């Protein structure tokens, strides 16, 4: 299930990779993102507790619009927790509490007038383990529309096609839309989950180690996909794979034990990090 590249970053390669791909990424950004909101998502003095255990400590950071931000850090440092708080998925857990605030376009996600459901409609999420529903491929994709009461056949058909095309899955499954989603391969399933997450055209896409259970070829496809998606979506991706972070992200945040150690352009984090801990982590001295 696990491929070797997960969990243990292979550092020498990652640096080389960054050096090779950076200019191209930068050029793209220069073309596509001349006007973007650098503070699409703002995290302000944010602390988070599971019962008595504090997991996040006074985080302050902002995620830029239509950019890919990678969250890296050793296991248990709170990456997933931060991610899951952005769409308030942690609400389901008993005994949680927080301090500080998370703002999306300036509006607090904890605003009592804001429906959690509408917040989640704004934010797509892709999980570490692909989780298609036990339904057909078609029904998986249109689920978010159906729960919103949108059942018009033409709209659903169109959404399926555009979402699957956006997730680079259309050609592979267009003839078998009514088959069970479980008939797909692992990589296809994860891309189906991405297609499902963008079916309702959210603004933000959260990805929690989306490739950790996939083989290198499937991983490559997803990474290409992330590249394509960032022209439309603000993407936050949690990854254990340094090469992946380097390849796909524009900015990288390094978390350690619930604290934000360093947050900067990906290039900077990997080439010349300012914190020794970051340096140690990206170069594989601890992990």
């Amino acid at each position, binding site marked *: 299930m696990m491929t070797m590249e997960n969990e243990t970053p292979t550092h020498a390669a990652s640096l080389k990779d960054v050096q090779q791909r950076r200019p191209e990424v930068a050029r793209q950004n220069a073309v596509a993102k001349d006007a973007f909101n650098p503070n699409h998502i703002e995290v302000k003095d944010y602390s988070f507790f599971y019962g008595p255990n504090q997991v996040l400590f006074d985080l302050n950071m902002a995620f830029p619009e239509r950019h890919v931000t990678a969250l890296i850090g050793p296991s248990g440092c709170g990456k997933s927790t931060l991610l899951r708080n952005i769409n308030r998925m942690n609400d389901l857990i008993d005994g949680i509490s927080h301090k500080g605030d998370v703002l999306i376009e300036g509006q607090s996600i904890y605003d009592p007038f804001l429906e959690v459901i509408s917040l989640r*409609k704004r934010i797509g999420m892709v999980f570490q383990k692909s989780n298609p529903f036990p339904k057909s491929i078609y029904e998986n994709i249109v689920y978010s529309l159906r729960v919103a009461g949108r059942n018009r056949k033409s709209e659903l058909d169109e959404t399926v096609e555009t979402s699957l095309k956006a997730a680079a899955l259309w050609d592979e499954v267009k003839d078998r839309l009514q088959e069970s989603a479980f008939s797909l391969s692992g990589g296809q399933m994860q891309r189906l989950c991405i297609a499902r997450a963008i079916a309702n055209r959210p603004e933000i896409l959260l990805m929690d180690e989306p490739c950790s259970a996939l083989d290198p070829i499937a991983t490559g496809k997803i990474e290409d996909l992330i590249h394509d998606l960032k022209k439309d979506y603000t993407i936050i991706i949690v990854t254990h794979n340094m090469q992946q972070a380097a390849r796909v992200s524009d900015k990288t945040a390094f978390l350690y034990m619930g604290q934000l150690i360093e947050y900067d352009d990906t290039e900077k984090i990997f080439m010349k990090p300012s914190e020794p801990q970051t340096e140690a982590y990206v170069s594989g001295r601890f992990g």
Partner: protein
Amino acid sequence: MPPTPPKKPIPERFVVAPATLWFDRFMNHFIKVGGLAIIVAVFLIFFFILLQIFPLFRGARVEPAATVSIPPGDYRTMGTDEWSELPFFLEQDGTLRFVDTVDIGGPHHRGSFVKAPSFIDEVEIAYARYNEYQAFLLYGTTDGRFSIVNVDYQPTFPARGGRQVVVSLRETPLLNVGRQGMTVERLAYGDSGTRKILAAIQRVNGRSELHAVSLAQRRTLLGPGELTVDGRYDLTEFLDGEPRHIMIPSDADALLIAFADGRVRFLHFDGRGFSERQVFTPFADRPDPRIASMNFLLGDVSVVMTAHDGANRIYSIFRDPTLDMRIWGHTKTFPDLPAGATFYSVGMRNKAFLIGSDRRASLRYGTTEAIRWEDELPFDVQFAALGPRYNRILFLDTDHTLHAYDLRDPHPQAGWKTYFGRIQYEGQATAEFSWQSTGGRDDFERKLSLVPLIIGTLKGTFYAMVFALPIALLAALYTSQFLRPDIKRFVKPTMEIMASLPSVVLGFLAALWLAPIVSNAVPSVILAVIGVTAAAYGFGYAWGNLPQRIRLCLKPGYEFLAFAPIMCLAAYAGWSLGPVVERAFFVVTDPNTGLQVPDFRLWYPTVTGLSFEQRNAFVVGFVMGFAVIPIIFTITEDALSNVPDAFRSGSLALGASRWQTAINIVLPTASAGIFSAIMIGLGRAVGETMIVVMATGNTPVTDFNPFTGMRTLSANIAVELPEAPYLGTLYRTLFLGAMVLFLMTFMVNTAAEILRQHLREKYKAVE
């Protein structure tokens, strides 16, 4: 040959302890044997039940046992004692020749001997007839008189051991009937104990006359006194044809006259006089409607008739609902005989009769229209007698040889038709499914249809499920998907404790506490249920439309705190509104006082035509629901909680509400488990016994009226098995009921398992 490498000893750290291996092997076998034993045990039970019901579906076996030559004579009829040991043959002159059929050639064989009533030398006998069931002979004389002679068989137990049947005759004095001095051609007599009537056809100047007398018997200090005539009726006016048969049932309230042209006239006797009720032609639809024979079946409410062409029918008397009068109607049809019956003998334990002509003898069963046995005999039959114990058949052939046959037919009534067919029982105007295994009289016709019991089982299950399913499933859904885990920790064990409530306690509560309350306040109960449901819907709707700011006053999962008081209020409002509604809508005239009273119990039957019982399916469904809810709840809750969290998270992250997630994702994914839960609950409800026994009147009904009780297969077994004679028809029928129950649950479970596998396949989670 390469040298074999030297064997290296296995290092000790790799050695498995022999005890471990041995224990492992032992447990393997133990489990295997245990599993096999369970399967074998189930099959043995199945086999045992099969063994119990198998004899029900066997026909009668008739085997020749003995032949006895009897002295030649001009015999008119025959009769026999209870053990078929000492049959008699009535000579043309009125004497009775008794023939010992036991111990032939042995030292105590009594051969044959003659007995006769004392008057036999004074008069000339013109007509004689034997009534097998009441064991009396009717004598009619050429001078217009009659006598009733009881043939008293008594078993004695001589010192040498065994049993010997002795016989004595008890006769009434010769009394005049109708026209004095005129030959009596036919007689019929009925004695209900309090009322006795006798009818006679007399030949007067070449014409037939019909006369009847009512008889009275004064009681004296020394027992029954002399029989005297206390009423005379000339019924000749009713003779508009040549009379062939006259019959009076033992209730002595009717007189049937069959004419030569095939008509039957039914006169009713009300104690004071005769009046015509009905004229019918039993074989009107046959080319030759003439009646060849006409005899009562046990109980004297059915007449077995044959036509000259061999058609064989039963006519029974029942209350016609449109005429509101007891009339005779065609109830049973049997396969034709070769010709009109020349001999007949009635079963005295059941509704069987032996009928035939010439060489063909047929043993038939009145209730089921079944032929139990039929054969072409190697001799011409003159008379036949079916042993009163239904264990022997005696035939007298035309060559004065008595042929005794052993009859083995322990379950004459059993058969598919009895158990699963509609039958028009005696006294009923229509064919129906009905169960009534015991009755007050010997001639009671058993009703053994399993259909009302199957319907009762389905009815009980249905009402239990109607009540239990929504509550159990919704409670499980709520508990697993919406309730806070810390509260859930209390709810589940509490429900499980509920499951351990003995059903006898529930049944007791239902019968003695709940049934009276519910029956007194049906509108209140219904309104309370409606109130709670409406409140739940209303609250859910209102709550969903409240701004999140107010909703957040209660943490998600604690909404029930707001709902609970509203629910109680709704229940209370519904309950107290009950009497108001009753006063407004359910007003009827009390049949006792003639006043207008608001009473649902009286209103319901008058409006729907169905009955209302205190212990009804409504109450049973409610209480049985309590027995079923915990089971369904627990298993459903487990199934729902076992749905992988990834599905839930996935759905919620897509902006589905908790409810949408529960309905669209969690429920279908858990459907296989929920289905099992429902099936296990269904199984419990189908087999549930104590609650049904206690909380219903156990009336075997065939309707789904919620306000009558029912009798389920399991309750039937519990109620009747203690009373059923070992290995008797009822006993085996109860086992048949058990088998039906077994098959019902088996079929339901098999279908459910197939469906469950299908669902599991469809919704199985990816690994």
